[in-house]
């Protein structure tokens, strides 16, 4: 799991690459917490275009970030999940809670 970080329009943008499972969820969780804290922002855009696999541990890690952000009246958006990842977001109900956009631009425009 590689995490690339960009700060734009008051949002932390994280671009994930690789498999998001029990083995990598912690890397993602730390990168997200650390970036949000450093920028003092609770707006997170998660670009999933590079995620090749996700399971319930990965979905849980995403939902966990959402809960923390919601507690602080922030905002979170998901971007461009590949077909298999999108199916998992739907099956788990995560897509009902966190909005999905097809580009970072649209996610920032909100």
């Amino acid at each position: 799991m590689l995490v690339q970080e960009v700060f734009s329009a008051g949002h932390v943008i994280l671009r994930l690459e690789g498999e998001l499972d029990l083995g990598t969820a912690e890397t993602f969780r730390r990168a997200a917490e650390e970036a949000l804290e450093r920028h003092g922002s609770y707006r997170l855009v998660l670009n999933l275009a590079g995620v090749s696999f996700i399971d319930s541990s990965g979905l849980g890690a995403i939902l966990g970030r959402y809960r923390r952000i919601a507690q602080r009246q922030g905002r979170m958006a998901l971007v461009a999940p590949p077909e298999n990842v999108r199916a998992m977001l739907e099956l788990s109900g995560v897509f009902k809670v966190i909005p999905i956009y097809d580009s970072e631009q649209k996610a920032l425009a909100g």
Partner: protein
Amino acid sequence: MPVQTAQNEMRLEILSRPENVGLVRVAVAAFASQLEFTLGEIEEIKVAVSEAVSNSILHAYDGPGRIGVTGRIDGQALEITVEDWGKGIPDVEEARQPAFSTDPERMGLGFVFMESFMDDLEVTSQPGKGTVVHMRKVCRAPAVQ
């Protein structure tokens, strides 16, 4: 066209550490590819295996422990068994309910995914002895000649 496989078997043992989920997943996916599953079905098998192994890693042991994964191909059926020798599950029926989890940080969807992505799911557990998760998926793709 893959080699016609009447019967095959594999056995994998790992330590109960989060970084080992991925290697079980790729090994089982490569094994499953010996049948003519679609890419979507292989994806489903990967999720199911990932859930079962993640459960043993997370829930079975307080300290280090071992996890065994067996794959079997019998005709057109793939069978996967994931077992640990850990705490066990006191009430399997309750554990299999959607959203049930003993860990507030988790979604309680592991068994739900295993069940919806495989054709059969059997969970046997003995508190203090361990847990065996047995899954089966039949390959229905017509053999294109």
